[in-house]
């Protein structure tokens, strides 16, 4: 039948479209981004001190923590965050987070780029407050 060709062509186009992720990545290694910890952060990790929350929680929830921090500081003028282990932190992206994670490009950006996330932190904050 004459329309069989058209149907097969249509079907082929459809399959090409839906297998897009398979062929677009052809021959690529799909390694997860390797995050480089800045020396201070590395030291905290090595010493077992860790971040403000356990690693898994930080990976999934850090954006929400930052949001809450901003809210507390800007709306409620509360600057002290008590971590899970009772340790107190100054709620500040520039002064606390970036103090350890001073390498935005190799730390923040790698994951964000990988997951196609564009946080608006940097609309206001500069990524290198200490000017290093």
């Amino acid at each position, binding site marked *: 039948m004459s329309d069989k060709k058209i*149907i097969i062509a249509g079907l082929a186009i459809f399959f090409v479209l839906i297998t897009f*992720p398979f062929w677009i*990545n052809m021959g690529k290694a*799909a390694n*997860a981004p390797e995050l480089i910890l800045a020396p201070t952060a590395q030291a905290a990790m090595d010493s077992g001190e860790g971040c403000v929350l356990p690693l898994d929680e930080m990976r*999934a929830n850090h954006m929400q923590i930052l949001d809450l921090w901003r809210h507390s500081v800007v709306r409620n003028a509360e600057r002290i965050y008590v971590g899970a282990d009772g340790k107190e932190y100054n709620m500040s992206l520039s002064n606390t987070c970036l103090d350890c994670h001073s390498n935005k490009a190799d730390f923040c950006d790698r994951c964000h780029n990988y997951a196609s996330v564009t946080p608006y932190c940097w609309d206001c904050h500069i990524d290198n407050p200490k000017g290093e």
Partner: protein
Amino acid sequence: MNAKYMYSFLAVLALFFLAYLGVRVPGLPVVFGILLPYAAVIIFIIGVGNRIMGWARSAVPFRITTTCGQQKSLSWIEQNKIDNPSSKGAVIVRMLLEVLCFRSLFRNTRIKMKEGPKLTYHLEIFLWIGALAFHYAFLVTILRHLRLFTEPVPYLIRLLETVDSFFRLEILYDVVQIGLPGVFISGFVLLAAAVYLFLRRLFIPQVKYISLAADYFPLFLIMGIAFTGIFMRYFSKVNVAAAKELAMGLVTFSPHIPESSISGVFYAHLLFVCVLLAYFPFSKLMHMGGIFLSPTRNLPGNTREVRHINPWNYPVKVHSYEAYEDDFREKMIEAGLPVVKQPAETAPEEKE
């Protein structure tokens, strides 16, 4: 209580717990994260291919276009080229409007009968809106998930994400915190539309009457997909990098379960998607392909102008003129009707 949707609902609930709890068993993440997704994709592709080719194998003996407008006839009568197409190009326009805008559904009306009896017709546009919202939200949701399947993420996908999260919505209380990461409107529209489509099956008596378990099941499944997705993104949070690592492993054929853990909700989400993919070719969801093959829409209404060929056209027994004349010759002659053969030429015996 209606067994049809209860069974469907329970089936989806069971799927959720199967994955949610299942991944806690060592070794099973490989099943849920690698084996089932591959199996689902294979079933989907082979299944859809088979189904479409099954339709393609059936003949199209007649051009049975449903004409929904003025035909092409006299030059001074304006033809409705889209609803009664007479050329291939116009058919393509008609099909595009049908596929992209659900044109036929847009015609929908609702009837009411009052005392008298008196019929009135009412605008019924909600099914059209709901269907459009549902399908387009689903499409956008699928497309923006490509960020998890591509590295680097193509510009168009990132653009779509930007558009989808255009409305910055942040709700920040001690109890509820929504808004980070940025809210994708498509997910919520998808969930809302699916719920609407479910509720109309539940509350419109006629639609409830015709609904099968097979109508509820995919709706619950899609609600489940949307719900787990939303829940993961805005509430329970998930390690997106790890999710992407898993997804990228699958599409680069180097599958592995990431070291950093991914929540059970993620696996439930994934299982729902796998079940939907595998279920697709065997269900009414094939309307996605079927609409392209619907002979009342995809053929031009120009049968009087261009002959359509029936591949299995076979000769039939026809009562011929000769047989007819033999039957009625005397009477025809008596009535002064012309005949081909004169009575003398025919067999001598009397006709009735």
